[in-house]
């Protein structure tokens, strides 16, 4: 009898936690990159919008390639990504409309202190990549079709090198996990500055190359074309574009800091014009 009561108690408890609240809220699905979500920026940027428009923004953080793919399948209403050539193709093919610049930061090339490829302090990222390949120093690639991966591959192409061989390792994982791999193997890696900053306290790798124009990392927001899929929440996607590129949105981006450093620079409105 006691046992029966105990089981009944457990079952009631389970049923209580399993009741799913029915969400009547309007929702907007935004596919974006892990770097924006992991930086914590979206947790600051989105709540004022959600409150103002009485909508829930569901952020699905994947690589840029996957985000674009989700949008093409009609599984996202809007994307916030960083890979300009892929973005332009997305718009040209009719999947996206009304792309706007949002913000930028930059990529940095990290490497071990003893720097076997001797690239520290170089200003030319393409030349640095060439030296890494020539010395066959281990290089970690994301290998996941993310914005960072696309950028990395475009630099190899510009250096006229096809990266392959035992020194070139593809992790297929996110930025943070890949930085960890590079750190453990004392290898070179290209990372976005935000993720590097998040890790800088725990790793031995240092910034060896930065500041090259090619390492510029701009983010754009693109609503998915409502002519493609009838269910898309295009109105709300446009409202979000308006909000993020407005004074209010750009100001939040401009003032967002982590580890005492500014992670993203607004680009829809010039910083000096942000009130």
């Amino acid at each position, binding site marked *: 009898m006691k*046992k029966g009561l105990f089981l009944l108690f*457990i079952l009631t408890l*389970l*049923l209580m*936690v*399993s*009741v*799913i609240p029915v969400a009547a809220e309007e929702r907007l*699905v935004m596919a974006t990159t*892990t770097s924006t979500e*992991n930086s914590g920026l979206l*947790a600051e940027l989105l709540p004022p919008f959600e409150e103002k428009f009485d909508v*829930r923004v*569901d*952020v*699905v*953080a*994947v690589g840029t390639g996957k985000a674009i793919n989700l949008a093409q*399948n*009609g*599984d996202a209403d809007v994307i916030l990504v960083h890979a300009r050539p892929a973005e332009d193709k997305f718009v040209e093919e009719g999947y996206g409309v009304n792309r706007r610049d949002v913000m930028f930061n930059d990529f940095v090339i990290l490497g071990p202190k003893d720097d076997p490829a001797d690239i520290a302090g170089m200003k030319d990222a393409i030349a640095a990549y060439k030296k890494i390949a020539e010395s066959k120093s281990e290089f970690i690639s994301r290998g996941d079709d993310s914005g960072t991966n696309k950028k990395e591959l475009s630099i190899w192409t510009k250096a006229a090198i096809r990266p392959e061989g035992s020194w070139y390792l593809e992790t297929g*994982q*996110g*930025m*943070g*996990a890949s930085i960890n791999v590079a750190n453990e193997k004392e290898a070179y890696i290209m990372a976005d500055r935000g993720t590097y900053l*998040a*890790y800088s306290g*725990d790793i031995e790798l240092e910034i060896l190359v930065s500041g090259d124009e090619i390492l510029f990392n701009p983010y754009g927001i693109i609503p998915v074309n409502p002519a493609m*899929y009838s*269910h898309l929440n295009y109105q709300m996607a446009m409202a979000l574009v308006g909000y993020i590129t407005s004074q209010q949105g750009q100001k939040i981006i401009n003032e967002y800091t982590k580890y005492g450093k500014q992670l993203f620079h607004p680009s829809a409105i010039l910083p000096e014009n942000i009130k």
Partner: protein
Amino acid sequence: MNYLQEALIEAFKLIINLDRELLDVVTTSLRLSVTSTLIAALPGILLGIIISRNNFGGKKVINVILNTLLGLPTVVVGLFVYSLISRRGPLGELDMLFSIRGIILGQIILILPIIIALSRNAIHDIDDKMYKTAISMGATRLQQFKLLLAEARYGISGALIAAFGRVIGEIGVSMMLGGNIRGVTRTITTAMAMETNKGRFGFGLALGLILLTIAFLVNFGVYYLQAGESSV
């Protein structure tokens, strides 16, 4: 070493202070796992009984398929259900991708074979005599069903607990179908993957500790049930 210590200290702080984000993730995981287990329970047990108690052509094939599906990789289920519920898929209209319902559908498919196979075994193991006597005394189908349930209750509970354990610890389905959306579909395992990726090892570790505790409680439940069986 120092590094691990720091992470552990942060983990305990988060747990003791009942950090809101942490609680959110844990309740989402529990809710999901309990719901999918409960929904999969009825068809799973019924099919288990049917397979165990009936002789039909192709039964061997079904058993082989079932045993294969026991070790179904979660990413396979995730990918399969994704292609079903994506907007371009046949069930796209239902708007299930990146929602709780999407994850539940995936998890049900994941654990249905487990519940069917384990309840089949549980039914198979019980003493045949009582069942045959009941039939000879003219028990109705419903009465037969109740009798089987009562006789195999420990084995069937074990099946449900095993299913629960499988879903609460899985990541493939939750990540692919839920999308790790903060406050909505973020579960213990997807949050752990993300926080580790962000370099917040303490948070990941705290979740790991909670997952271990849940696993311990679940196994304690199994032990309790087995103890009950031996005292009968």
